[in-house]
């Protein structure tokens, strides 16, 4: 029971972190049709910028500086890069962001080296918030939830209550028509791309000391964020939210499940040994393949329901 509740909480925290990353990517993908491969790299930059900012100006400055820097970088990428590549087609845009992954990844390695950075939870937030069944729930995780919830509210307000938000919503599902109505869609694109990168940067600020800040973090987070975006569906932030929480739970819960398919077959009288034909696969405990489950779910949903959970258009 303890395990269930603790995992539930942790899954929620991780899910909200995923949502922060995935929401920016969904907005970009739904509107511009570009799957930004470099999104995980921007997340990484956010974490590194936050680390540097914390070193000189304290953690609270990092919350402001790192996302803004990431947003600026996003704007630069869109204006001087993506816009030019746009007329070469979708695959060219995909390839462009793909190339960015190399450049950003290597630049980070060059600037900060290969070892993880000592980006720690700030002392002010480093205490147990409450104790559940003997396990402490760190205040920092509560803080993460706060930030992500706040961001969710901010996005909702922006989209539903402002004029630019209305245009963004329109362009989310009907980009062509929105342009035909006379809105400055290129400007909207730049804003959305920069905004998405800003969100990724923010995610990096709070995720960088939750996980570890090192050059491999882009590759670690990248695939699962794609999974969330695809799973949630195009054109739907609600779907993205749902998918983030589901994936967060899946990854968190799978780590604590020690059974394997073989264990399930045992009461049926079927014994599977490691040496049997598929024995290796069937005797693996779910915990070990936890990282694969989201990918598996993405492949399945693309096969049977390509528009995702709540998507409005086909991927």
């Amino acid at each position, binding site marked *: 029971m303890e395990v269930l509740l603790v995992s539930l909480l942790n899954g929620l925290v991780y899910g909200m972190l995923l949502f922060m990353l995935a929401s920016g990517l969904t907005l970009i993908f739904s509107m511009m*049709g570009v*799957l930004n491969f470099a999104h995980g790299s921007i997340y990484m930059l956010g974490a590194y910028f936050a680390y540097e900012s914390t070193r000189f100006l304290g953690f609270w400055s990092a919350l402001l500086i790192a996302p803004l820097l990431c947003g600026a970088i996003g704007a630069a990428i869109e204006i001087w*890069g993506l816009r*030019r*590549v746009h007329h*070469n087609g*979708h*695959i*060219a845009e*995909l*390839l*462009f962001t*793909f*190339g*960015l*992954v*190399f*450049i950003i*990844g*290597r*630049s980070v*390695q*060059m*600037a*900060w*080296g*290969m070892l993880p950075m000592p980006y720690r939870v700030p002392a002010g937030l480093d205490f147990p918030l409450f104790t559940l069944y003997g396990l402490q729930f760190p205040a920092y995780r509560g803080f993460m939830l706060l930030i992500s919830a706040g961001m969710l509210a901010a996005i909702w307000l922006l989209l539903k209550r402002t004029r630019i938000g209305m245009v963004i919503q329109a362009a989310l599902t009907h980009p062509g028509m929105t342009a035909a109505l006379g809105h400055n869609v290129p400007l909207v694109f730049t804003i959305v791309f920069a905004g998405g990168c800003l969100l990724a940067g923010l995610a990096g600020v709070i995720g960088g000391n939750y996980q570890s800040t090192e050059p491999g973090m882009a590759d670690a987070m990248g*695939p699962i964020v*794609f*999974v969330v975006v*695809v799973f949630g569906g195009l054109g739907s932030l609600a779907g993205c939210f749902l998918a983030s929480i589901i994936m967060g739970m899946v990854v968190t819960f799978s780590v604590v499940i020690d059974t394997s398919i073989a264990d399930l077959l045992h009461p049926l009288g079927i014994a599977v040994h490691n040496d049997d034909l598929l*024995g*290796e*696969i069937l005797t*693996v405990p779910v915990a*070990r*393949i936890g*990282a*694969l489950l989201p*990918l*598996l779910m*993405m*492949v399945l949903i*693309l*096969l049977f329901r*390509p528009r995702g959970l709540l998507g409005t258009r*086909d*991927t």
Partner: protein
Amino acid sequence: MIRRAWIPWLVLLVLAIVLPWLFYDWAHHRHAGFVISMLSQMGMMIILALSYNMLLGQSGLFSLCHATFFGFGGYATIHFLNAAGAGELPVPMELMPLLAGLSGLGLAIVFGAMATRQRATAFAMITLGIGELVATAALMFHHFFGGEGGVTTNRMIDQSLFGLSYASGIQVYYLILAWAFIAALLMRLQTMTPLGRMANACRDNFERAQFMGYDPRAVRFLQFSLAGFFAGIGGGLYAITYEIVTFDSVAAPLSANALLMAYIGGNMAFAGPVLGAILITLLQSGVSLMSNSWLIYVGVLFIAMVTFAPTGLAGIIMLHGPIWRAGRLSRLALPYLRLVVPGLAAVAGFVGFVELLSFLTIGSEQGKRLELFGSTIDETSAMPWIVAIALLTLGVVWLRIESRYFARVWEAVTADMPEARA
């Protein structure tokens, strides 16, 4: 009767056969190991890049799991070789790559049935998932993949159609060359078949293809499977050469490599990936020895091509075809020269900047010093930085001016040639 179009290929083939002997060490009666190793690598990468382009350039399919079939062919071949060594598989070495290809084909059929249900971005995402899944599985499962350590074999199986032992690198190289030639020929012929042409058609306009009686999904599926076959052949040769296959052979970096080679070489011409494979292998062997920042240069080159030259090197070369045939190529000589100088300055400045940065941060940890033409450069002093940044800025500015002049000359030269307008 030799067609004119075949000549470059025949020249390449002769060169490939003869090259090892140009570097032969006559005094000690041995081949230059480095040269043979690099040429062998090129052969395998040519097969990988060509098979990848069956998807990217020919069919408009952006696959992110191509290494999966290359690696699977490799893993399978290790097991085949082990079985042959134990006397259980009477297949000659020369036909092992064929078995590898069939293994790749089998896996591609299984995964292809899933992936090709979708097209465009959804297809890319499914292949991303497949690639990650298989790479992770390769790390975890021991029976077939050998876990982290991989699987090994000994290629001295003593089964050969020509009585060769394949003990020496040069013999393995000629095996690779022979198979690279066969694979390239088959892939070239395939582009001239109904399936090959319809793959092009579906790439250009899948709806039109539907209204001509073709199911684009079936076309995608068949192309994907055939591409897996050829990739598997490459993997088999890899296994024979290195006698070990690890999860690197199915990992994302190798898939990315295939993409780079096909795209930079030029995905709209058959020879493009060959060009790309040769170039990238050369650069990788050469540049990575001299610099830590190889990946940055690749990334920048890649992005530059995506933005300014999406048809790749082969595309740029072919653009000059009509001009050459019209006898006006010489008119471009001086404009090109005027581009080259600022271009080199910009590149030198950029490389200098990157290298200085690299040595400032990583290099100092590793105790290396930046050497240029024999003299050591101090990365902590201001002078080298000023020079590098100045070269880069001046180079870029001057390049922009020159490129406008070049564009005007190009317009004038190609005024009556619609095909040369990019």
